[in-house]
């Protein structure tokens, strides 16, 4: 797979536009899925995932072929998703940093402002509920949880994608799971 991808990338670097189409075809579903899980909206996910491919094309000369292409591509996409989420948020959300474990409660409270009544949540079908719960996660936890449990990526790869130290990724996975647990209670 990686060999084929690098072959296509070399063709793109030589100016072969069509070779890029093959790359898009290979990665479209994975990239779209990450964006959809992050944003929770199909139109936005399509827009951002397409934008991510455009940026990959424009910056293809900066991609280091010794590394994994999907890691580089996911990094572009997750950065775009995080930017998009921040733009949509009201200002007070921006400053909501988590100073320690106790910050989790603050975050959960803020997140809870967008919550639905419990009986509405209970009526949701599984797929809808999954997306709802992910959407309620603070976005710094949301990205690691999506990469860990929906893309099923190893922690090291998540650390490469998000350009965070492995220890930070572990902490975020822990807190993300903790946040999920609290959100969902004993369902």
């Amino acid at each position, binding site marked *: 797979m990686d060999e084929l991808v690098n072959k296509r990338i070399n063709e793109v670097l030589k*100016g072969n536009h069509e070779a890029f189409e093959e790359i898009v075809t290979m990665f479209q579903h994975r990239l779209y*899925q990450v964006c*959809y899980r992050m944003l929770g909206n199909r139109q936005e996910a*399509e827009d951002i995932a397409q*934008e991510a491919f*455009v940026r990959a094309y424009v910056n293809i000369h900066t991609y280091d072929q010794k590394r994994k292409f999907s890691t580089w591509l996911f990094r572009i996409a997750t950065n775009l998703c995080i930017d998009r989420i921040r733009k949509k948020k009201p200002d007070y959300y921006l400053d909501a940093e988590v100073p320690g474990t106790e910050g989790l409660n603050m975050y959960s409270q803020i997140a809870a402002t967008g919550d639905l009544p419990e009986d509405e949540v209970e009526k949701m079908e599984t797929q809808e509920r999954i997306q709802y719960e992910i959407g309620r996660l603070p976005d710094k936890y949301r990205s690691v949880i999506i990469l860990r449990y929906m893309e099923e990526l190893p922690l090291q790869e998540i650390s490469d994608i998000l350009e965070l130290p492995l220890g930070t990724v572990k902490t975020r*996975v822990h807190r993300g799971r903790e946040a999920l647990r609290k959100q969902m209670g004993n369902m």
Partner: protein
Amino acid sequence: MNTCRESMIHYMHAYLDGDISREEERKLKEHLTECPSCKEMMDELQSAVSFLQLAEPVKAPEGFVSGVMDRLPKEKPKAGIHRLLRRHPLIAAAAMFVVLMSATLFSSYSNQHFSVTKQPNLVIEGETVVVPAGETVKGDIVVKNGNIRIEGEVDGNVTVINGSKYMASTAVVTGKSEEIDKAFDWLWYNIKTTVKGFFPSSSNEKGENLQNENE
């Protein structure tokens, strides 16, 4: 609320990440059998995670790929040339030729001496070649850095490089007649004639193709 030590919670997460030693795992399992609140927390964490794993794969919509391709910026000129060369190997060959020959060709272009193909019947007046009225020149005429005045007939091609051509009302040129003023034209003219020279008879068409592709 869980009152157990931080370490147990840490073990739970380490366990869920598959990042736990046997010794730690043993301690955790032992603790879970005797502490209901930790057992409950562990169960909740596990069910939250398993719930997420019920997520069905999501697929990009129809037309996603072509949407990306439409959004790509227009090809860079450099890439365009690459593609052109790939699709038209003959042009590529000509381009190669230009590169290899240009030094020689430019030096002969910048050589400003007047010259003309030797043909009987031609009259030279200073830097002007005259085909006198009533005379017929059989063969091609090439004039460099000078002019030509045609009053009679030329049974062949007339080429004027870096000069002018005057045609009297009586003038007749049976072949092609062209004036070359610019360095580029001059190069091209040389390429054409050289390529024709390379393929003397049957392959002459190739030279024609080359010419057509450029025009």
